[in-house]
């Protein structure tokens, strides 16, 4: 027993040493390997594939532009549809290969939560391109970053917009996917409504399984509850299914519908006018800010030429994440006398990083959480496109909707009241 103890202590020491030797290896590699995690099959691929396309596309652009510090990017894509076990195994395999230096992971909040401790164990900088759940960074991490904002500002924004747009709302129904993202969003949305308008009643709360193909009974249940407002953060194939099934059954005419991820289906299903939609952040390629950015417009047009569809916000989020990765490398090289940075140095550089993306600005706080603005609006007919676009927009400043670092978000929300709404910009103010 004592021998074993001694072995363990020795092994612990040995295991710690290679990290130090690795840190001094500063030669430029031939390629910069990046593991990219997204859904490329199944219902969730409707959201995941535009993300993958965005990655491929921005990598092409970055590489054509000389890569990062002269090193071209090389991505390995991992399909998250294989489930957490497979995703974690693939992550371990990729991170175990030294030629992969950064992980862009993941799409699903569930996978993000599962991967974060693995990333920390393996000391590989991991940038959550779509890890919105606020639970992600409740622990202290050195290698896990989320540059895209989280569920707190995202769903605070919807509550604020809804109450500005429809101040007399009293009966609210919720239908969200049955996992962290859906439950988080419901909790935040409910907490915000309770703070801003305590008399709102939640008349139905449904959590269909992620990837459920039929929502017919849920739709009956929602109709029976007679809500003024139906809030949903369904996404991907589920959202398309829900819209296709709910629209003929009249849900969109009897209730004000809020689809938090509605922008992703604007080009795929015929959403009626007046639906409250947004992009969970600032990633709307047609926002006034984006329209003024020539680079973004070139990106969007070239993207459409290649994939037959305009980018959706997952595309923009993914592309922005790569720009952030590039900025981190450049910052790390600058700090490192232009020598190629180690994984640890890249992680270090991500802390406090500030950069311009295709759709706005991002700042990474000291808790590794990114601050981005939140755009919310309402669907309107477009003069230029054959699909509805977002009108009557508001752009909330990211910081204004986030609790201060270290504060429990729900405590923060419950401390707010109606007067908080008055400090925010109004619908239609972002033109």
């Amino acid at each position, binding site marked *: 027993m004592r021998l074993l103890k001694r072995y363990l202590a020795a092994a612990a020491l040995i295991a710690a040493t290679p990290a130090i030797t690795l840190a001094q290896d500063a030669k430029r590699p031939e390629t910069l390997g990046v593991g990219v995690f997204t859904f490329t099959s199944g219902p969730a691929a409707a959201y995941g594939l535009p993300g993958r396309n965005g990655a491929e596309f921005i990598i092409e652009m970055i590489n054509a532009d000389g890569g990062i510090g002269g090193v071209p990017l090389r991505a390995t894509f991992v399909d998250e549809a294989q489930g957490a076990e497979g995703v974690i195994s693939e992550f371990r395999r990729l991170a175990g290969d030294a030629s992969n230096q950064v992980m862009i992971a993941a799409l699903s909040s569930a996978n993000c939560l599962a991967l974060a401790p693995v990333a920390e164990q393996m000391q590989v900088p991991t940038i959550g391109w779509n890890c919105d759940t606020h639970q992600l960074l409740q622990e202290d991490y050195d290698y896990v970053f989320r540059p895209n904002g989280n569920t707190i500002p995202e769903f605070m924004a919807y509550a604020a917009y809804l109450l500005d747009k429809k101040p007399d709302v009293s009966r609210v129904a919720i239908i969200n996917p049955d996992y962290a993202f859906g439950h988080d969003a419901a909790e935040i949305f409910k907490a915000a409504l309770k703070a801003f308008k305590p008399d709102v009643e939640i008349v139905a709360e449904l959590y269909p399984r992620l990837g459920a193909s*039929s929502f017919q*009974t*849920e739709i009956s249940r929602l109709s029976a509850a007679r809500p003024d407002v139906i809030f949903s953060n369904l996404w991907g194939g589920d959202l398309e*299914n829900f819209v296709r099934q709910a629209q003929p059954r009249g849900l969109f005419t009897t209730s004000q519908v809020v689809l938090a991820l509605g922008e992703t289906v604007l080009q795929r299903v015929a959403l009626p006018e007046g639906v409250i939609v947004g992009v969970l952040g600032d990633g709307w390629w047609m926002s006034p800010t984006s329209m003024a950015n020539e680079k973004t417009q070139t990106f969007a047009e070239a993207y459409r030429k290649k994939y037959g569809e305009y980018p959706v916000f997952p595309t923009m989020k993914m592309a922005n994440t790569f720009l952030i990765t590039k900025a981190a490398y450049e910052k790390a090289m600058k700090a490192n006398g232009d020598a190629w940075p180690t994984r640890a140095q890249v992680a270090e550089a991500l802390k406090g990083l500030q950069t311009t993306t295709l759709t706005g600005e991002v700042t990474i706080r000291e808790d590794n959480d990114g601050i981005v603005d939140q755009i919310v609006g309402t669907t309107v007919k477009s003069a230029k496109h054959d699909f509805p676009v977002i009108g009557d927009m508001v752009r909330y400043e990211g910081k204004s909707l986030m609790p201060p670092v270290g504060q429990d978000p729900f405590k923060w929300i419950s401390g707010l009241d109606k007067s908080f709404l008055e400090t925010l910009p109004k619908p239609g103010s972002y033109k």
Partner: protein
Amino acid sequence: MLQSLVPLLVDGLANAALIFFVAVGLTLVFSVLRILNVAHGSFYSIGAYAAASIGLWIVSSGFSPYLTFPALLLSAALVAALFGPLVERTLVRWTYGKSEAVQILVTFGLFLILEDLQRMVFGVQSLYEDTPMALLGITEIGGIVYLNYQLLLIGLAAVVIIGLRLLIRHTRHGKFLAAVVADREVSQTLGIDTNRVFIMAFALGVFLAALGGALATPTSGVAPGLGAETVVLAFAVAAIGGLGQIEGAAIAAVIVGLARVLAIYYAPALDAVAPYLVMLVVLLIRPYGLFGSVTTRRI
């Protein structure tokens, strides 16, 4: 009170109709061939993919959208014609008289093969084809808007039960089928071509599974994983009704459909558990299902 019960019933029946076709196919195959086909759900999803693909092709080629209705039936028939005899003659037939373990494993192998074949043929993205639903319009019942297509499915399910009953009781082939179900050896000695009966029954089972898949497409998307999900639900329904009991499957489908609806209305957290909970409770009390008969242990 009554008013709120009506939608519950309609939803329950609509739910039941969706699972009835595939479950009755499973139970029919079991009653004649005495095998539990684990790959049965794959025929459901292949039927769904076929129907969605053919429907999309009809719409994009500019044919009358009303052609999508016969296309639903046609795609199920195609799947049955393609897979029924082929699978029965090559794989399933080989397992007759072998232990249940072998039968389950062979059909599980088939399930795995068909899962990947579907991905190769139909891709991994979701397909949507809702023309038949859109053409039929809506009806308001008890203050809730329903799709006429949902009501049509309930009717179709009823037609299929009656049809199967007529087929088995009143046609020559059906009587052969019933004879084989009752006693395989005696039917053989009486000169019934059991091989033909087996092919027929298996193809009919595949047809019913594929039909279930095809009929589901207008109101729901088709994506990978559909087969794996459907087959356990079909097992549950078939087991509750009693394996091999056609009317039993119909009643079990209604019970499971209602259980799911009740869960969604009153205890949403239990919606996915409901069918299996019903199955467990029923099997705890009646291990051979509600209408199944106790078979003696083999010596």
